[in-house]
């Protein structure tokens, strides 16, 4: 008998089917359909319009972005604008598919912030602190099981002085032993525009450099493996940062 199993369609119900209202918004299982993607698309355009008034955005290394989800973007974190700028630079066809991982205790603690974080930024809550691999299990499942893209700032918090802080190893738990490509990025100039100690941003220009994707399929899913991944990614992002400033010096 001539059978063919394309294995390509799975009746996989929405992971957040049983949740509603704020529980759904605060869940790392939240999935985005046509309505959510449209809202996110509109939010992206509005963001661009607002940013356009006072920020010049340049990017290089776009060819390094994988064509298809899933992948993880890893960047340094120096202002609230970082996630918005990166999400603007990502191609429009990924709208609704990329999620910024945002601190649950900061971005999801009040209803209004929750709505902003989910509807405008398309953020998923990340529990900071000593949750360990358990806290990230849901996110890892999302990454390997679905077509999503994560924007991650492994420093864990915004830089207070413009210098990059050491990365936290949690990211390693997400990608260790998986085929998911991790793309290191360096965002330069965002700190000048909106440092942590200022209430409002000021005009300026930013540049996003996108490095080559790295895959950690052979990394061990234990503490040693996570630390190794952290070290490699940190080095890659620092390297990108160096290149960016070298080029500026040459200019």
């Amino acid at each position: 008998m001539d059978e063919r199993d394309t294995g390509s369609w799975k009746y996989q119900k929405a992971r957040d089917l049983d949740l509603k209202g704020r529980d759904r918004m605060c869940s790392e299982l939240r999935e985005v359909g046509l309505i959510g993607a449209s809202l996110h698309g509109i939010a992206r355009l509005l963001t661009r319009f607002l940013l356009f008034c006072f920020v010049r955005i340049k990017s290089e290394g776009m060819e390094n972005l994988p064509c298809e989800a899933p992948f993880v973007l890893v960047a340094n974190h120096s202002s609230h604008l970082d996630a918005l700028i990166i999400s603007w630079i990502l191609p429009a066809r990924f709208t609704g598919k990329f999620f910024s991982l945002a601190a649950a205790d900061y971005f999801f603690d009040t209803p209004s912030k929750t709505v902003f974080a989910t509807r405008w930024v398309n953020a998923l809550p990340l529990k900071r602190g000593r949750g360990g691999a358990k806290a990230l299990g849901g996110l890892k499942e999302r990454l390997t099981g679905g077509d999503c893209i994560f924007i991650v700032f492994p420093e864990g918090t915004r830089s207070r002085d413009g210098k990059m802080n050491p990365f936290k190893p949690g990211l390693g738990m997400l990608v260790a032993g998986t085929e998911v490509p991790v793309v290191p990025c360096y965002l330069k100039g965002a700190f000048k525009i909106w440092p942590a100690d200022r209430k409002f941003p000021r005009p300026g220009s930013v540049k996003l450099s996108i490095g080559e994707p790295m895959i950690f399929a052979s990394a061990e899913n234990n503490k040693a493996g996570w630390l190794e991944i952290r070290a490699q990614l940190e080095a890659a992002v620092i390297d990108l940062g160096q290149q960016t400033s070298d080029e500026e010096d040459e200019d």
Partner: protein
Amino acid sequence: MDAATTARWFDYTQALENRFFVTAGFGIGALLLIALLLTTVLSRSGKIGKERSRELFSRTFTWVGLVIAIGAPLFFGAFWTILALLFLSIFCYREFARITGLFRNYLVSIAVVIGIVVVFFAVLDHWYNFFTATSSLGVVLIVTLGVLSDRPNGYLQRVALAVLAFLMFGVSLGHVAYMANDSNFRSLILLFLIAVELNDVFAYLAGNLFGRRKLAPETSPNKTIEGSLGAVVSTTLLIYFLGPFVFEGTAMDSAGKLITLGVIVSLTGQLGDLVISSVKRDLGIKDTGNILPGHGGILDRFDSLLLAGPAYFHFIGYFNGFGLNEPTRIFWGGL
């Protein structure tokens, strides 16, 4: 736009002159009040547990909300009725997409939503020829847009799901909405909704009272043959007695036709219920959503409309037609 259409679309004073609509409105209101009172008495008496009484309350309150959500557009005019049914159709698709996983495929979802909007545009325009064409045009749109992503893997499955959804929600509920083009649309649609929703209730009650033999144990274990027959009898009687108020002086106003209509509505209503039950069984889920407290999803509540809509439409349409005296192709100036 001519005066007749404006009046049909927006003039709510017509609702007050409609005896059937007003009487039925009061009747439903009274029923809900009685239900609320009964629930209160039951929960006060302590005969039912706290959990059960909370469930009863949320069920009843959801019914109140649903009656307002359905009654208000009907009251305010045909335009709002069509708009409300458009939203119902899209939300049915949303739930279907979320339980099947189709919602992850934006391109196909966009095709379905565009298809549904086009169906309802034809309805609003009162352009029957285009309305009949939209079912095939929608299917064409889905299969062609499905090609554009250039991902042949899984093409058949996702396109088949989308076509099923489009026909089941868009075209089907489009038929219900098309009745809004008749000058007597309030009575027509209200009778339909009352009959179909009470049909569910009759089946449940008759099943509880007399139910012994299972109807389709694998699909829906709680349904019984006795319940189903009880619903057919009760719904037919309901339409037989209410029908003359709706169809006064038309070709439908005859005992034989009303009895046939009752049997058709009852059977198709129950079949629609079984269709959605099969979908849920196949996917291994209990409810299609949780948007209606105490009921589950929108699809769980409105599943019986899906097949009964076109059946009711075509049976009445065969004898009476819809909106034959109303202007057609409204957006083209009314012909």
